């Protein structure tokens, strides 16, 4: 666990999953900010300056890839770890994400919240 609370921005449109991930990350010592969709995420990110971003792909209006592209263009977010989350798991999504600059890719139904927290912590330690 980090000594100073690391801030994580979770951009996820599914309320049930928002609550679940917020709960788990807070229990694991993170400060959690939730964005309900892509546009909110792009809006909140420069204001809150999170250390790491969890980004859902399938969202209405603006999907995760568009948000990823926009975030990477913002000053200060070129190197921020951004982990894509999805329930699709198709190889072309993984490749597309990597090409756009995603740090990692998780399939939600294949990973428990604890496993996702572990991935985030691993990525932060690599920094």
């Amino acid at each position, binding site marked *: 666990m980090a000594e100073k609370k690391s801030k994580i921005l979770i951009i996820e449109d599914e309320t049930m999953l928002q609550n*679940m*991930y917020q709960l788990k990350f807070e229990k694991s010592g993170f400060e959690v900010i939730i964005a309900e969709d892509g546009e909110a995420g792009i809006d909140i990110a420069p204001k809150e300056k999170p250390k790491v971003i969890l980004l859902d792909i399938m969202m209405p209006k603006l999907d995760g890839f568009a948000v990823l592209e926009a975030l990477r263009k913002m000053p200060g977010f070129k190197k921020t770890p951004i982990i894509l989350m999805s329930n699709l798991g198709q190889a072309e999504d993984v*490749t597309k994400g990597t090409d756009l600059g995603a740090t990692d890719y998780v*399939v939600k139904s*294949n990973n428990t919240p604890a496993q996702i927290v572990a991935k985030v912590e691993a990525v932060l330690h690599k920094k």
Partner: protein
Amino acid sequence: MESVIQFCFEETQAIFFAIGNIPPFILYTHLPAGIIAVLIAFFVLHKGRGNANNLPNKILSLSLFFFAYWVFANVIIWGTVMTDVIMFLWSLQILFEPMVYMGIAYMVFNMLSGHDLSFKIKILIAALFIPFVLIIPTKLNLFGFNLTECIPIETYPAFYSYVLEVSSIVFIAILSIVRYRKESDITTKKKIIPLAFGSIFFLLAFGSGNLFGSLTGEWVKTQFGLLGMPIFAAALAYLVVKYRIFNTRLLSTEVLVGGLWLLVFSLIFVRRIEIILWILVPTLVLLIAMGYLLIRTTKREVKQRQQLERLSGELYEANKKLKELDQLKTEFLSIASHQLRTPLSGIKGYLSMMIDGDFGKFSGEQAGILDRVKAEVDRLVRLVQDFLNVSRIESGKLQIAQLDFNFCDIVKTVITELEPTAKTKGLELTYICDKDQIIITGDSDKLKDVVVNLVDNAIKYTKKGKVWIEIKKFKDEIQVEVHDSGVGVNPKEIGKLFNKFQRAKGIAKVSPSGTGLGLYTAKKIVSAHHGDIWAESKGEGEGSVFAFKIPIKPVNIKG
């Protein structure tokens, strides 16, 4: 008498023959016949180019070129008074004439039998012919010149050529009758009639004209024999249009129109009214026949083009629809994937948090139940994954990612996931990794599915004992083996295990659940990584090993 003698020694014009000397009837009978023969010869030769089965094309062309020579030489003979020219051209006529007959007979033989003459027969025919060829330029062929009638004096070789000609006609007749009787296919039978009739009529007409001329000396009147040529052409045209002989689908419009032009043009040469009337009737018949063929051919071409356009349009629409359906399928897969897995993520997530103690401790019994519920949820997740994989495989949309990952980590995750299930059955579940880190390039999620399938099966079909995984690293590949001390497999059934919906016989008693899809998808995923998957078992009750190997760094991964 005097004028006849004078005619023979009359000074010729600057050119060696003059059209003015030629009776119009000669021109009328010869020019169309010769030109039609040349046109057909070129046409049929052109159509045969590039085709394996073009022997009849070549034979017919050659025969018609000989015939055309005969015709044009005859015109020149009629138009010249130079005796040496007449003798030369006439002697070649005697040579080429039987070759027309033998050529047509050869062509008919080839078309009816479907094969060529044997080499021995060809040698025999050559033997019959070569002495004839040697005699042609000598006095034994044409031993003098009749100044009264202005024609050479023929002897035995000329009559020998008639023997060859008659034999050819008889050969065609007998062959056609025999084949007609033997043939059971109606279409082929129908082809034989016009072919035989057309060939025999042409050759008979041609031959009888010459024979009468040789016997009676009435050379002008006997030129009717050449009218057999247009009849022959009509028979061939019919065969081409109806049966597509000579590899020709459609009779070219140019040939038909050219033929019509010729016939009408040649009427210019006919001046004497009594002959005009006599000639117009067959000309009209031929005009009608050619006109009919022309209209039919054109109509057929138009119909075919319309059909082609229609089919093209239908193909375009069908293709468009297929693309739409394909798109719908892809969208459906995405939606189904997302919609099914979202609630599953929630159930699995909260359960795992409860088990981790995020909401307080549970009693032993409660914890045990939670473990079992989580195991079932994991099973459901895997089922959804299997169905989605199969859908993607069936649509050809299985995509394989190419990323580096530690294979031992994957195995560790699988063990953690399946440990509760194994524990419930009192089974030991362990793994041995050759090294701590085995980094390979591939699709970690899909390969995890493969390992999960194999280990899940091993646990399912083992009543007691243990299940263990061995990961071995070789130079260019890794080999993963899942061993179990379970029910084993009948060696005869091993090959079928990896088929879709296939389960080993009697396995339902051991484990009622199981879709028969797990091994099928595992095989497809391993193949997509350019690997191999197999199973080994000493027999029922002897345990089994399910293993696969994949390259560490594949050159390219197909989906």
